[in-house]
């Protein structure tokens, strides 16, 4: 039961708005493929039509990904994987 409760407890949201997509979000959607099974099974991947973060530049630059409450700007697969690992080990 404990295991089930912990399963899929990392929520990953990838912005698929115009700016993010153009800056590389399309590759980020492949994130589950690069994670080992034990981690891949714990993430809950979701897309967002637009997180509205690209305007003004106060959040950094696109593409944007959220791993639970942590926002990653200029997101790349290694950066997102690193954050997922960090949160998984908490």
């Amino acid at each position, binding site marked *: 039961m404990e295991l089930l409760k912990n399963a899929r407890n990392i929520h990953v949201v990838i912005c698929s708005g*115009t700016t993010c*997509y*153009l800056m590389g979000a399309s590759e980020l959607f492949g994130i589950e493929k690069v994670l080992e099974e034990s981690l891949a099974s714990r993430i809950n991947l979701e*897309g967002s*039509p637009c997180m509205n973060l690209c305007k003004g530049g106060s959040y950094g630059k*696109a593409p944007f990904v959220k791993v639970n409450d942590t926002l990653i700007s200029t997101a790349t697969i290694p950066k997102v994987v690193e954050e997922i690992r960090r949160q998984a080990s908490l």
Partner: protein
Amino acid sequence: METFIEVDHHQCPKGSYRMEGDIFLSKKILPENRVISVLSDGLGSGVKAGVLSTLTATMAITCMAGNVPIERAAQIIHQTLPVCSERRIRYATFTIVDVRGNQEVRILEYDNPPYVLIRDGEIVEVQKTVARLPSRYGRKTTISLSSFVAKPGDRIIVFSDGVVQSGIGTPAMPLGWGTEGVKKFLQEVVQRDPTLSARELAHTVVRKSLWNDALEAKDDITCGVLYFRNPRRALVLTGPPVAIERDKELASIFSVYRGKRIICGGTTATILARELGKQVRVCLQNIDPEVPPASEMEGADLVTEGILTLGKTAELLDGNLQGRTHRPSTKNAAYLLMEQLLNSDIVDFVVGTRINEAHQDPSMPMELEIRRNIVKRIAQLLEERYLKEVHIQFI
């Protein structure tokens, strides 16, 4: 009841040819409320036949639009066509359908299989008069003329001999499908699905002909359909309104619209979801490297990203997609949008004019077009090439 003429066609080239020798061309003359369609079949196959039929159809449409008398038009066409190097004759068949005021139909036929008129699920035989043109070139040239007043729900179906002769020599239909076979099929299909679109019907006929030929067409196969129907509408909302105060207005346009409701734009979708208290869910299947994934929202028939998707849809509409069996390998959001647009008769665009400053960043890997310009381009394609009615409103 308001009627709209949905015009579409489908075709498939002979055997391994890459280009059809038949053509189906249409033109809408808005000030006269007139639609003219021409089906022409050029002598032979491939590029040469394609040139003959394209020349014929283009001239026929131009002559009809300019109200040139029929005999004169036929003469002009005949004198202009190049002589086939193998057969030493100039020849391309044609069927011209000229509709005024959405109902007055005049049809001129020269050597194509006779057209079919379906009304209330039944085939209607229209009286035809035969006119003989001066046979200056040693061939007897007769043209058949017919006219009638179309009723809502009518369908006019024209097709090339590749349809009638499909299946020829096969054990199932040694003499080919035949005019009667085609008629029976058309009637069955329409009775089964009384609101079947012109687009689908043309497709169905070509598909069946191709099956008759065991999937390798023995001749160019073309079917064009004019369907007098109650217009199907689609609303496309794209871009956030110029001021936040107008978000509610946008949401109400969306809510009261009767027809398909499409949203193109991440911010636009977010605004509508907020105003209407709905959830937007991005579909993560079939991620396409160029076109962002579509989303789902209750009450919307399609939700896509904005500029990239619209740009790709314009590209799809601009490529000579109409009438082809060729389909893109992935059904990305741009393809889904194109399908929605082509399945509609009247498209209402509501374009938000707020500029997304992030799109103006010079470090972007490609230039993002201004939304209004893409929408105008799509509107022009829909009107001119696909004979749709388009309205654009800015907010």
